[in-house]
């Protein structure tokens, strides 16, 4: 049996050390963040969250959100001071922070800003037809594609008019995805232009990899965001996911990314400790969007695009359940699930929150292990 060299052991020790540092730093800043959230009453309102009517969830009213700040700040601070590498960590952190800012605005707007209305496609069409000024009509006609995009984006939104609009989210996520795609395609090297196919080899799809990367970043960020709906659900599933990324990054020789993923794992352990039922605070969009973006970028950075569906399995399942639900409503006029995303469906069926979370954790862990195994080939 091959023994690990002292250099390898040292590297692993180094990585785990940063994971522990992330855990400790998150623990240190938690009381401050928590106090801030309670002081400014940054908590979930039942006026916009209909799921708070489900039996077992009524106690979540007035639970602070934006607890994900603990994780985001820990990752940012430790990476900036100890792991600030132009080639490998600038863009993941940049992408994460873009999404964190977006999520932060969404959380704040949801609580403190009145419902914002936008003109729908149908309303714009009416104005094109009826406005007395022809130049104004022309202007409205030119904005029709934009109005259509806004309406289409809002189909998947859950809080119409509250917080950041769905189309605004999509645009900022496009920027995050675009930056990631630019970085991977132009800065990392020729190897990253090809997709690693486990058990097979590499597949070169040329410039088509750019939209694929953008799509993956947007989808994964929203998938984690959608999954953050129960105490400890998203946090508990992100721990094995980032652990898997830590392991794979180390195996493939990306020390900087391994450290980044380890720090994230450590911070998540602390966060989840306080997030399990009854949660002291919830992640909020500031954390879920940020971590979803980071997850996607880090997986892409170690050329593990095809194992993402495994290491982010339950996140993807939750996101797909929303797509199925919306598709069922629009195409067939019927509900496929009692409520989407999927965890609410099981809640509506009478599963306790704890049972739903535990089952999701276990299934997710199983698929993460499968993903790691596949990724090693």
């Amino acid at each position, binding site marked *: 049996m091959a023994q690990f060299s002292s250099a390898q052991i040292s590297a692993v020790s180094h990585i785990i050390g940063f994971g522990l540092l992330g855990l400790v730093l998150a623990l240190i800043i938690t009381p401050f963040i928590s106090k801030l959230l309670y002081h400014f009453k940054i908590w979930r309102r*039942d006026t916009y969250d*209909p*799921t*708070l*009517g*489900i039996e077992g969830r*009524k106690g979540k009213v007035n639970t602070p959100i934006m607890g994900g700040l603990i994780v985001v700040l820990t990752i940012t601070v430790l990476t900036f001071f100890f792991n600030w590498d132009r080639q490998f960590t600038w863009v993941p952190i940049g992408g994460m922070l873009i999404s964190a800012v977006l999520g932060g605005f969404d959380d704040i707007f949801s609580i403190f800003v009145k419902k914002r209305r936008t003109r729908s496609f149908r309303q714009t069409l009416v104005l094109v037809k009826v406005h007395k000024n022809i130049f104004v009509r022309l202007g409205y006609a030119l904005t029709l594609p934009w109005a259509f995009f806004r309406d289409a984006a809002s189909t998947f939104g859950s809080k119409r008019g509250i917080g950041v609009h769905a189309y605004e989210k999509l645009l900022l996520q496009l920027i995050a995805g675009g930056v990631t795609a630019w970085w991977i395609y132009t800065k990392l090297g020729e190897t990253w232009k090809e997709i690693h196919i486990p058990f097979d080899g590499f597949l070169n799809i040329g410039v088509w990899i750019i939209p694929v990367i953008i799509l993956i970043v947007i989808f994964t960020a929203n998938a984690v965001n959608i999954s953050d709906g129960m105490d400890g659900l998203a946090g508990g599933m992100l721990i094995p996911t980032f652990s898997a990324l830590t392991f794979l990054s180390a195996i493939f020789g990306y020390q900087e990314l391994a450290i980044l993923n380890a720090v994230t794992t450590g911070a998540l352990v602390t966060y989840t400790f306080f997030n399990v039922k009854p949660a002291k605070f919830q992640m909020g969009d500031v954390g879920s969007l940020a971590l979803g973006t980071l997850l996607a970028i880090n997986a892409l950075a170690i050329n593990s695009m095809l194992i993402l569906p495994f290491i982010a399995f339950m996140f993807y399942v939750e996101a797909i359940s929303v797509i199925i639900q919306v598709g069922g*409503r*629009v*195409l*067939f*006029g*019927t*509900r496929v699930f*009692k*409520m989407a995303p999927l965890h609410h469906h099981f809640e*509506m069926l009478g599963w306790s929150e704890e049972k739903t979370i535990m089952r999701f954790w276990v299934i997710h862990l199983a698929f993460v292990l499968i993903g790691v195994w596949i990724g090693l080939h």
Partner: protein
Amino acid sequence: METLSENTLAVIEKYLHLPLGIGCQTPYFNNRRKRVRGGLRALVGKGTPEEISEEAEILSVKDRVSIKNMSEKTLKEFLVDENLGIDCSGFAYHILDAEAQARIGKKLRNIVKTYKGFERKIIHKFRPAENTGVSTFSNEKNSIEIDIENTRPADFISIIGTGIDRKYNHMLIVENVEKTATSIKIIYIHSYAWPEDGAYGHGVRRGEINLKSGQNILDGIWTEKEKTGKNNFTFFSVQNAQSVSLRRLRAF
């Protein structure tokens, strides 16, 4: 006495007494005013009793009210306030669909076609109940006019061009037929809203038409909610319609 199949009668019974809490009559809801687009069919007046009940339960969770504790009156008001209900053609669709499956083993979507263009045909494939209205049922390619003497359960009375400005269509489903040598009694069922019903009194209900042999449908005595003649708004709608005909689906 001829009657509809057991399955069809079960569907009617569910509309008359929704499987929800203590149960209540399904209200009438027409999507004309709300103009919901791409929504659940339970929310556009085209849902089955199960879909309407499920939607009511989900809405009760969102609104943080308990359906279990509601009286029949309160429950009906809750449904109306949440825009849950069924319109005339939606009701007819599900009744005739149950009857088609019982009689000929086919779904109604496969035997009633829309004739409004290619785009509509595609939409009809996905959302048949929402795209099968009174005019579709009454189209010559889907149904034929029949004589009163030959009336059977699952026939329907098509009322075209009634209401204000004569822009409104309506239909009644024949539930039972009792014939003697000199008379015919037609028991119909439909979903309708009379002006006097107010905000909450409308919904699925029965009525009857008593005719002597040889009489035209308009000459019979129409009774609904114990009202006849001009006091019977259904009869009033029939009298003021552009055309009224007793029809049977070609597949039946």
